[in-house]
């Protein structure tokens, strides 16, 4: 039998201060990156938000003949009045991503277009205030923003479409939709966290649920921090990755909590501290194997999944690492600390006799009893019992 971990006896909780310090440092680094980037004028934004959230246009184009250099492309765009186009190479040499920030709708004057009579700007009241201003050209109003047309015009300067270039995909998001998607992403994440909190509180106790959710929140913040530091783009799919990470991290935490619940039943004399250490050690090989396998499949996604999934898989890759780490290093210590305080608070007024007190769902009531009998924390005293031979 191959086994990675045999009879581990690590006192994880003894390192809780170090763990939490590391996490706080990571979160502070992310926060500092976000705040500094946002505050420094002319610099980058806190997060490199994609068109989904910021509005704007992204066009993926393939050059069929010679691929012009990034500088040439940028220069052609500048001629079209799009000074801040971002040209981004992809893993295929002839394919480029062209990102154009949201343009004000009025810039699109003089499109050589057939006189389409589609001119939705029709409020007669609007007219007297703007004497002499030409009405927007036909079709300009039909754009999410004029970015798509501008990009096409700039590309046309390299030769006709379908002969010298072809557009593989277009994404254009208006400002309102961007704002909406942003609010929605935050709302969905928070709602998912609340749902998880309630379920864990129902299956375990509130302290368990809170600890798990704090740990997950930590994972999300650290991942976002890394995205801010690295200036990786945050798109809708990255948000999906963050929500997956929420599920994965809680998944990992629950495996440990489940074991704690079971062990509290078996080792009635063990302290919560010791039982938690024991449970982490018992599930360690599962934790490592599962996380390792998920890590591998996500890595396959990073390497082979293509450009479109890159942001998603990167976020998930980081998420798997921190999701695993936080179950051991954040969720468990917080749960132990919290539960000990609750127990201490309950033990004080009603003395030891207060054991019966409602009891909560299942085992944690015994945890209180167990702790009261087992005395102080901090001593590594692995209870010998099932699971050891």
């Amino acid at each position, binding site marked *: 039998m*191959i086994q990675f971990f045999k009879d581990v006896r690590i006192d994880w909780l003894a390192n809780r201060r170090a763990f939490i310090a590391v996490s706080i440092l990571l979160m502070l680094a992310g926060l500092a990156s976000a705040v500094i980037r946002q505050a420094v004028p002319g610099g980058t934004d806190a997060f490199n938000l994609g068109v989904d959230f910021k509005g704007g246009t992204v066009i*993926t184009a393939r050059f069929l003949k010679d691929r012009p250099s990034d500088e040439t492309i940028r220069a052609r765009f500048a001629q079209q009045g799009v000074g801040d186009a971002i040209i981004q190479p992809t893993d295929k040499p002839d394919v480029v991503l062209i990102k154009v920030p949201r343009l004000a709708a009025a810039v699109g004057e003089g499109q050589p*277009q*057939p*006189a*389409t*009579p*589609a001119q*939705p700007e*029709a*409020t007669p*009241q609007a*007219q*007297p205030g703007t004497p002499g201003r*030409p*009405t927007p*050209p*036909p*079709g300009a109003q*039909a754009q*999410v923003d004029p970015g*798509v047309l501008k990009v096409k015009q700039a590309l046309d300067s390299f030769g006709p479409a379908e002969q010298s270039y*072809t*557009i*593989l*995909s*277009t994404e*254009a998001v208006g400002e*309102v939709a961007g704002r909406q998607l942003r609010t929605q992403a935050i*709302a*969905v994440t928070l*709602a*998912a966290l609340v749902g998880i909190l309630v*379920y*864990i509180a129902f299956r375990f106790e509130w302290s368990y649920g809170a600890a798990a959710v704090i740990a997950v929140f930590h994972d999300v913040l650290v991942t976002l921090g890394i995205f801010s530091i690295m200036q990786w783009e945050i798109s809708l*799919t990255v*948000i*999906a990755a963050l*929500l*997956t990470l*929420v*599920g994965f991290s*809680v*998944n990992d935490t629950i*495996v440990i909590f*489940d*074991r704690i619940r079971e062990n509290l039943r078996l080792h009635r004399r063990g302290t919560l501290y010791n039982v938690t250490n024991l449970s982490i050690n018992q599930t360690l090989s*599962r934790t490592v*194997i599962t996380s390792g*396998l*998920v890590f*591998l*499949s*996500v890595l396959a996604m990073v390497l*082979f*999944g293509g450009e*479109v*999934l890159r942001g998603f898989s990167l976020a998930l890759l980081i998420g798997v690492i921190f999701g695993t780490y936080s179950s051991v290093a954040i969720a468990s210590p917080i749960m132990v600390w919290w539960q000990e305080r609750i127990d201490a608070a309950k033990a004080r007024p009603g003395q030891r006799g207060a054991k019966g007190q409602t009891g909560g769902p299942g085992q944690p009531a015994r945890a209180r009893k167990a702790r009261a009998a087992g005395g102080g924390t901090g001593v590594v005293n692995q209870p010998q019992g099932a*699971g050891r*031979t």
Partner: protein
Amino acid sequence: MKKKNLLRRFILIAVVTIVGLYVVIGPHRRPKLSDFTPVGIKNSLKDNIRLGLDLKGGSHLVMRVKVEEFLKRLALTNATIADKAAKDVGAKVTDARADTSGGYRFLVTTADGAKLNELQEEVRKKVDVNDWRPTVSGNTVTWALTGSAETRLGQEATEQAYKIIESRINAVGVAEPTLQFHGAQNSHQILLQMPGLQDPQRVKDLLVGESRLELVHVVSPASPSPVQTYSTPEEATAAASQGGQMPANKLIVPYLDRDEPTTAGDTASDPNAAKTKKWVVVDQPAVVDGSELSRADAVSRTGGSDYQITFNLKPSGAEKFGAWTGSNIGQYMGVMLNGEIKSVAFIKSQINDSGEISGRFTKQSADDLALTLRSGALPAPIEYQEERTVGPSLGQDSIRAGVEASLVGLGLVIAFMLFYYRGSGINAVVALILNMILMMAALVLIKATLTLPGIAGIILTIGMAVDSNVLIFERIREEMRTGKTIPSAVEQGFARAFVTIIDTHVTTIISSLFLFVFGTGPIKGFAVTLVLGLLVNLFSAVYVSRTIFIWHLNQKGRRADSLSI
């Protein structure tokens, strides 16, 4: 476990597997022999799995109905109604206008307050005062739109726009379009998906064509004097004003002098070049509007490449129009499209039911305008908020990349499980492959759409599914170490791990459900596959895997003292 029981388990698994496999790769009609050749299977696969636009290519458009414009217009119309009502009851109007700053109101101020009640009664005949609540202060009556009416009218405008867009889409002949309301209840958004469409520009222009046609009286000295135009809107306003106030029944609108016919075929010359913009004053409300149209056609004007639109009026409209033209011979009439005068003509004789819109139309733009006129006017302008178009080649690339990544992920996981758990690893591999088959079958059965993020969900499911096996196997190992017999270690391993598996699955499903219910587009596709994968996993990783263990131990019989795990 009894043999009979085991047999029942095997039959169930076999049936589920075969049905699942057939659902995915079999034809969903009476099967033919040719359906089971590789080509046949490939075709069925293509039919069964609905690919999202990001995989098969196509265009995804989110548009918003500018409901605020609709309500503004409504307030404006009501202001003219109130103005007329005041005159009808003999009150001297000093001010009648719409006020749309922070809410929708229209108001009338009279010189003396004596006729206010009468005025309100008169307005009540035409305007629903449950929607527009009147309040009186001094000599002014203000009708304000209530919040609930605002919501309801907004909704109605969106629904109406939806129907019109639907008829336009059908008329233009886009293949397999899907149209649906989008976003929150009061976001007034409509989502249009057009698979296979690569350049949505024409459709986009066609859909937003407001096509608000109105035939109006142009305020001008009668023919033979030329029509009265103004070179700036200020001039026009000054001419139309009475005592510094713009009357509510007059409107200043731009008038682009009729363009010269295009000679260059379908490519019009620069539209900005030859136009001289003028302004005219027109009477409100219009004599007839686009809702009275019975038909509209694009016709070649000179038999050449210059097009115009001829239209006919319904009997009710024709009656109104005939009466008005009959009593206004010599006056100027304007054809107003979307708040802009397209052409002006003086009335030679009574006109009943037909007219034309000339302008500078190519065949395509005339056809498109006729189409939108036939489908009716949009209640409010429409703006595009999101456009995502994926070409078919990128979609192909994405499918290939997704399949590649899935296979590599699956391969790595299988290799590890076989290496680490030896014989029992086979168990996990069977469970994994079955999971994939059943998940795809579930996708097909609920007619879900497979998107690129959906493929990511599949890859993640591989990772999460194998977790259940790892949990169980690790637990069996632990139980074995405590000295239990193999069968009871297996039994205990499954029983204990099952509690954890339920908890982990439920939490992941909870967070995925939020994604599914509140997420949009790519996020939704991801949640669908993940949830399906996890549900299926309860069957494959627990039930199937357990059955294989039981069968294996039964085979060994009493000699079951070792287990390859």
